């Protein structure tokens, strides 16, 4: 019995818990935009990963010219939010009320255009975003970068700020009312088309912010959105389509599972865990793991 307890790699579990939370928070930041856009306008945004990628590239460019990581974060968020608003007005607004398939095709088209634009503009070689500070602390045998903790904290702060905005501001009430009943919201004088545009812009901005934050941990390239969008879709489904809290919980849950799995198998194999969770969710609780049982 004692030997079994000894065999548990406590140090690795602690490290992987930390890693899982860090990636979970980034994923939550991406997925909350995705789930919000789905919840309010029934649009499955296949271009979300490319907004994340574009955010990272804008971060690279602003960092190279200004030297300030924080300025890069701010400008990437704002520029991609504006781009998101423009995309919504020109592409999605005319499709409102049509077959959902048309919006899927539209966002898929946007995603291809943005990916190839990035390839054309920046080339196939991955760029790097320098983290704003390079301090480490020792965790068992590992030098753990402070920056990773900062990512988790900043993502949590952005999500928390957004939650407060939804909960207390007039515009937050408008967003929640529109999510629940678009027609009645309109009859109460809420300018629903503009609420849609604003939500798309906010979701795009959050994706871009996560792109810049995560840039230092991976290379920035034109295809970086693909991995993340897939995972973000998984957590949106597992968390319950359109549920913000559900997506956040599912992000952390799945990232932790993957992190623990990669103690024993390679990280590439650990990805399987999220698909298993997805399949089990769809089989046994298709409304989502982290939402109350529907009545």
């Amino acid at each position, binding site marked *: 019995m004692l030997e079994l307890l000894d065999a548990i790699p406590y140090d690795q579990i602690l490290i992987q818990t930390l890693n899982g939370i860090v990636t979970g928070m980034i994923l939550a930041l991406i997925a909350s935009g995705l789930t919000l856009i789905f919840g309010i306008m029934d649009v499955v945004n296949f271009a979300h990963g490319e907004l994340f990628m574009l955010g990272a590239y804008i971060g690279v460019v602003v960092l190279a010219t200004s030297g300030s990581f924080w300025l890069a974060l701010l400008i990437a968020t704002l520029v991609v939010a504006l781009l998101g608003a423009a995309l919504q007005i020109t592409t999605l607004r005319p499709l409102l009320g049509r077959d959902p398939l048309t919006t899927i095709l539209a966002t898929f088209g946007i995603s291809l255009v943005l990916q190839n634009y990035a390839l054309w503009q920046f080339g196939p070689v991955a760029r790097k975003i320098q983290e704003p500070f390079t301090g480490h602390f020792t965790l068992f045998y590992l030098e753990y970068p402070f920056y990773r903790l900062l990512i988790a904290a900043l993502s949590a702060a952005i999500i928390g700020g957004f939650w407060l905005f939804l909960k207390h501001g*007039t515009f937050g*009430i*408008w967003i*929640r*009312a529109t999510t*629940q*009943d678009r*027609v*009645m*919201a*309109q*009859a*109460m*004088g*809420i*300018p*629903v*088309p503009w609420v849609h545009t604003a939500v798309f812009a906010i979701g795009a901005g959050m994706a871009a912010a996560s792109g810049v934050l995560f840039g230092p941990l991976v290379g920035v390239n034109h295809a970086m959105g693909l991995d993340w969008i897939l995972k973000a879709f998984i957590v949106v489904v597992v968390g319950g389509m359109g549920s913000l809290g559900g997506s956040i919980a599912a992000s952390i849950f799945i990232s932790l599972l993957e992190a623990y799995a990669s103690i024993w198998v390679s990280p590439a194999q650990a990805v399987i865990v999220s698909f298993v969770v997805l399949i089990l969710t769809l089989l046994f609780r298709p409304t989502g793991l982290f939402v109350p049982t529907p009545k």
Partner: protein
Amino acid sequence: MSPDAPVEPLVAVEDLHTYYGKSHILHGVSLCVGKGEVVGLLGRNGVGKSTTLKTIMGLIHPDRGKVLLDGTPITGLPAHKLARRGIGYVPEDRRIFRLLTVMENLRTGLDRHGVTDARKRELLDKVFAFFPVLAERRNQAGGTLSGGEQQMLAIARAIMLEPRIILLDEPTEGLMPRMVSQIREIIAVLNREGVAILLVEQNVPLTLEASQRVYIMEKGAVRHHAAAAELKVGDAVIHQYLGV
């Protein structure tokens, strides 16, 4: 036999034709509501009463015909602009924002540009005086209220817009008699304050009592138009069109 049209029409509907997909729902509905007037709209289920209200509210766009507000055409304007121009809507199924609190439901109409904090306070005090139960439950989610309380909230929410006309779709449906008389009272109070009401109801006695004029619809068109005082519950015309 038809009564005179009101001197100052607030909302006028002219020859509305509305389709749902391929089915022709409204076949040329014309009616009008004067400033500060309560007008009843009677008819059996499925004759197009609710569709008429939705078309006025801009939630459905008619294929033909006009809706005028103060003589200005508003056909085709989105509902949110009409709400800001003074049309309040209380739908048949109430459509409370179930996950929003009572207070937040009210704020969907209250948080408008140009409403001072003092005015907001006044409006809230007014509806809380009408419906004290809403004040008690102001922090409770709308979905947890009883049917009658949801109806009160739906009316209170429309009042937040300071409307000049309220489109009231079957407000007493499924309510206890005590609640029905409370709704009746609210209609009278709003009317005294100069708010016009277009009332769709199945409850004939209540409609005749609350309204100044009554339109009766059948098969997507207005078939009869009379002063409410000229009609009685047992009249042949009521029996003919409503079967009661």
